[in-house]
């Protein structure tokens, strides 16, 4: 064990389990999650134009949550962050929480921008937003 440690100031070396069982288990977890994501992706593809906004956005949210789960496994097991001491984990995770607001604020901003453009800043109804002669065009936006 001592051979893993690069300095006498460090008393801990992550992942000195003798087996590789945990690594392969994580590989299978990641693969299964990816396959589920792909399944949902194909579901969206085959339901394209048939589903309303609600089911589409819910499916996309589920895919996003599965992605976060994959990220958790990669960071926690493959990068061994889960094996570090709590203070170390917190210095990485807490700053990243800023993303929660970044994502909410900027997507909100984008949506507001679109609505302002479609309505000339709320001065008209958004009927003419798509100048297309082809009315069946589905909104491919998320």
């Amino acid at each position: 064990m001592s051979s893993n440690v690069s300095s006498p100031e460090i008393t801990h070396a992550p992942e000195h389990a003798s087996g590789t069982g945990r690594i392969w288990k994580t590989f299978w977890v990641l693969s299964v999650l990816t396959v589920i994501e792909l399944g949902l992706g194909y579901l969206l593809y085959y339901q394209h134009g048939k589903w309303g906004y609600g089911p589409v956005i819910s499916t996309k949210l589920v895919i996003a949550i599965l992605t976060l789960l994959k990220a958790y496994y990669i960071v926690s097991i493959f990068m061994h962050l889960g094996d570090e001491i709590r203070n170390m984990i917190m210095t990485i995770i807490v700053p990243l929480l800023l993303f929660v607001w970044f994502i909410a604020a900027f997507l909100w901003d984008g949506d507001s921008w679109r609505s302002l453009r479609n309505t000339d800043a709320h001065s008209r109804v958004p009927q003419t937003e798509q100048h297309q002669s082809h009315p069946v065009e589905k909104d491919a936006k998320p």
Partner: protein
Amino acid sequence: MSTTAIPTNTKWWNGGRSPFNISYGKVMMWYFLMSDAFTFGAFLISYGTIRFSVNHWADPNHVFNAFPFAGHANLPLAFVSLMTFILIFSSVTMVLAVHEGHKMNRKGVEKYMILTILGGLAFLGCQAWEWTHMITGDHAVLVNGQIEHWGTTVTRNPWGPEVMHNGQLVATPGPIAFGGYFFGITGFHGFHVFSGVIINLVMLIKTRLGHFDQRGHYEMIEKAGLYWHFVDLVWVFVFLCFYLV
């Protein structure tokens, strides 16, 4: 998994020990990766903002539906799934290299580093094919009443809304931001993969030369591994934002 006994009430900040019980190099690699995560995050959020701000965005299932040697078969998600599995698998071989490093097994480290490098090169090859396919693509677009044939580049997006033209549905030009974001973000990620391959090559050479055996530990492999896993981590989100939703 860390079973090393840490005495309770350890005074982490009194000197003489690493406050995070981790080497300086690894702490700094983590903080670099955190800043890199913000860079990628900013790119992806900016992409999301623009995508939310327009009425029509290209459907990834139409744009990314090709597979090498499959001609014009419609195979949405297939090629990118292959790329995803290549990267997940190279992440596994990387973590196995780190594992062998802990056991001071030089031959094992060499074997898994070679596999990781091959995985990275395979991914880069896939990306090169995909970019070439996108740029040299040939899609009918209605421009000023004329049908033109466009590829997808940073200045041309043939995936706009479809209109009727002479009794046929034809696409119109879409927002050029599509190509800009696609090539910009996958390019930035691809450059990370490329530099990861270079770093892994250096690590392989240093392993071969026995540098880590002389040093008494394989921590450099761990640091290179952190970077490589981060590349995989970013791809998980690129995969989500560009191909799945």
